């Protein structure tokens, strides 16, 4: 089974972002790395200057690099940026919105977790259009994933296995709204929260995480105890989504379990040490409310 690293979803400082990927390239036992700013097009210019170096370093280390597309494409500038991304040759694009399909259909590409593929006929349609890898929507139960994996054995089917779950995307920026700023003049306040901004209930119960125009879960997905079931379901890759913790060690921990060097129980304890204070969840994969953990 492959391990893949999803794109950084938060607004990290550009140098930190670059160094994160350099270390992933040098040390993390992941096979695939998806890079690029996919949440907010306003953030993209900050990472642009480092992107070629990051891609080169990752590829040199033997990682397959995917270029993630923007999740919500509205503005003319965003459409142009998406079209340019899809027109590029060489590096596989990870499609996060169907906007890409207009130009990329018929050519090999990957599909990210933001495209609605809930069943085998939709998966088969996308594979026919050129999808070689599909990361399924995080809310999909394993029973559905198994049917999809069996229907399109030619594609690598991936599940979201670690990290806060992206739950919603909006045209409205909640970071800007909270700071009483307009989206157009947001002063990039989201950079103050490299692991997202905590949203609690009025009872102070942890609930969600705000990341600009994106809303994520508070709980961190942890499918390390589900690896046997995921293997049996024909899942070919596990996605680790970067959080503000030691992702190299997180990847090593998953790799150890995949290779039989560590038990799932011990590994889950190790993940708790690596991401202190995180509440883990695996409800979606079990067809339960997403926040739950069994």
């Amino acid at each position: 089974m492959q391990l893949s690293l999803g794109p950084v979803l938060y607004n990290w400082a550009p140098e930190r972002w670059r160094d994160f990927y350099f270390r992933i390239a040098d040390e993390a036992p992941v096979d695939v790395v998806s890079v690029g700013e996919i949440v907010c097009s306003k953030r993209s210019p900050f990472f642009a200057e480092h992107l070629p170096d990051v891609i080169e370093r990752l590829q040199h280390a033997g990682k397959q690099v995917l270029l993630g597309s923007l999740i919500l494409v509205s503005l003319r500038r965003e459409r142009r940026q998406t079209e340019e991304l899809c027109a590029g040759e060489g590096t596989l694009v990870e499609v996060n919105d169907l906007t890409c399909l207009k130009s990329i259909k018929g050519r090999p590409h990957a599909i990210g977790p933001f495209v609605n593929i809930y069943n085998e006929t939709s998966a088969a349609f996308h594979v026919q259009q050129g999808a070689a890898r599909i990361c399924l929507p995080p809310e999909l139960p394993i029973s559905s994933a198994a049917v999809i994996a069996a229907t399109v054995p030619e594609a690598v089917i991936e599940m979201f296995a670690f990290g806060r779950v992206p739950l919603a995307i909006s045209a409205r920026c909640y970071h800007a709204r909270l700071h009483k700023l307009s989206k157009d003049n947001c002063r990039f306040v989201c950079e103050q929260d490299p692991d997202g901004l905590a949203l609690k209930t009025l009872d102070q119960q942890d609930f969600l995480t705000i990341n600009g125009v994106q809303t994520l879960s508070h709980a961190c997905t942890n499918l390390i105890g589900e690896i046997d079931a995921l293997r049996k379901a024909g899942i070919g890759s596990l996605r680790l989504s970067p959080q503000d913790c030691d992702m190299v060690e997180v990847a090593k921990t998953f790799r150890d379990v995949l290779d039989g060097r560590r038990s799932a129980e011990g590994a889950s304890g190790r993940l708790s040490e690596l991401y202190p204070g995180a509440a883990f969840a695996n409800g979606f994969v079990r067809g339960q409310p997403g926040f739950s953990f069994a």
Partner: protein
Amino acid sequence: MELICPAGTPAALRSAIDAGADAVYCGFNDETNARNFPGLNFSRDELRKGIAFAHSRGARILVAINTFPRASSVALWQRAVDDAVDAGADALIVADIGLMDYVARRHPNQRLHVSVQAAAANPDAIAFYVETFGARRVVLPRVLSVSEIAEITREAGCETEVFVFGGLCVMAEGRCSLSSYATGKSPNMQGVCSPASHVAYKETAQGTTSRLGGFTINRFAPQEAAGYPTLCKGRFSTEHGDGYIFEDPVSLDATTLLAGLRTAGVAALKIEGRQRGRAYIESVVRHFRRALDTLVDGCEADVGSLKPFTEGQASTVGAYRKTCGDRLRSAMNERSPDAT
């Protein structure tokens, strides 16, 4: 502009047409449609009769088959498509790409509309649906401004339809798992959002707490009316303050923007609310019929009479009149009465 009205029951369908709907949209009474509520929606026989009634009155019926089929049960959704076509539906409203592919192959002459749940928010995404499946109309998300709608309508190779009244999604529709995170039930999979089966109200000396799937969504002072705990319209807490972080409990009402939408080239106006009763249908449809008719005569539309039918008795033109400052309402200054 065509006026498209919701119907959750045969009686509502007739009321909508009597009140002046050009077309009515409805769904089958199962998980194939995005308003899968108990006691709501149409049997095969009811749909057939509804279509006959509508056609006899010169109105059209659009059938919403707009959830994402469950793996290994796709046949249930395909049968819904076949039955709707067979019953004489004027158009099918579909969200799932595999199901659109099925409609285009199996029923190439059937008029296909792209559901708002398919999240086609720009001309390129729309072009894909038009080129690949021959889609004739796209329902646009409620996150666009009128000028954005005009631009999309100019470039889209098909008709556009926009919501003018009812529930207001602030998250991109068809791409939201907030409800399933809290309850295990989602709009995409089960056709429900913040389902009543997971709602609880708790009375305390400080007032009423509304909960959804184990999370407090709002808290109301004793004299405050307790609203339904729709997840994205709850009051929450952050280090920057408490309040309606995502959206206030308001409904969309675009009555004052009809002229602009017409200039934008929009083909159809949609009223949300297949789950609502006949009183809502009659009043809201009549209101928009009158507004559209007076619009033709060059008069200002009559506004204000729809307050009882809005969430929290408050309405907004939503993103339609989007400018830099006006999205920043009072949300953050509003502290919950008994939050400490």
